[in-house]
């Protein structure tokens, strides 16, 4: 088995071959937003730990989170979180075997993209 001859077979086409499509982009964005949220987790857990550790440490963490950079990161976090949530909802719908035809999938994809921006703007307004 280990000595099996390695033939030069053609590889199946991958990402670089395909033209980007709404369905593929919205799918990849789910993965990107989900994984990128680890940055948000670090910030949130750090802030909570700082608050639990005393006023001085809290001031440091709170200063970072409420600075313009912290605001920027948290706003993008909200955008990523809302997108991941809406696309997750779409995923649950897909998993039930519905909405898998291209026109519906593309409509739902636009819904996720627009919806996440709208929800982020609402979040920024409310908070």
């Amino acid at each position, binding site marked *: 088995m280990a000595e099996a001859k390695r033939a030069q077979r053609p590889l199946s086409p991958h990402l670089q071959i395909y033209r980007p499509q709404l369905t593929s982009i919205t799918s990849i964005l789910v993965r990107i937003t989900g994984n990128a949220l680890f940055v948000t987790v670090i910030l949130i857990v750090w802030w909570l730990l700082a*608050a639990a550790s005393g006023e001085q440490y809290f001031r440091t963490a709170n200063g970072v989170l409420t600075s313009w950079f912290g605001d920027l990161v948290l706003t993008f976090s909200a955008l990523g979180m809302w997108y991941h949530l809406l696309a997750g909802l779409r995923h649950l719908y897909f998993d039930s075997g519905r909405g898998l035809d291209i026109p519906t999938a593309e409509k739902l994809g636009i819904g996720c993209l627009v919806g996440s921006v709208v929800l982020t703007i609402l979040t920024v307004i409310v908070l």
Partner: protein
Amino acid sequence: MRYLTDRKQATGLGSAKSGTDHFWHMQISSVALLFLVPAFIFTFGSAVGRGYEQVLAYYSHPFPAVVAALTLIVGLVHFKNGAQVAIEDYAHGITRKALIIGVTCFSYGSIAIGLFALVKLAL
């Protein structure tokens, strides 16, 4: 004596030997997070920006503290499982194992630190 046939024992398990468990647990946690994440965004979001004393008082209330605890637990287990699938897609061999171990440590570590902080804040 076994009453299950060999075929019956293998049905639905696939090559990973765990069947659709992973998929099913992603679905359970995603449904939970549909409710937890909005609640967390608005409770945590309203806490950030307050003063020290106000944050202590806010997180000694049950609702924001319990929402934060549940979001950290369910969210990070969901993250661990999701990131594992991504790692399995792109990384191979020892890199894959190291990354999965790393993500697992990060997830449970963040849960533990977050819960410690929340308990300390609440008491």
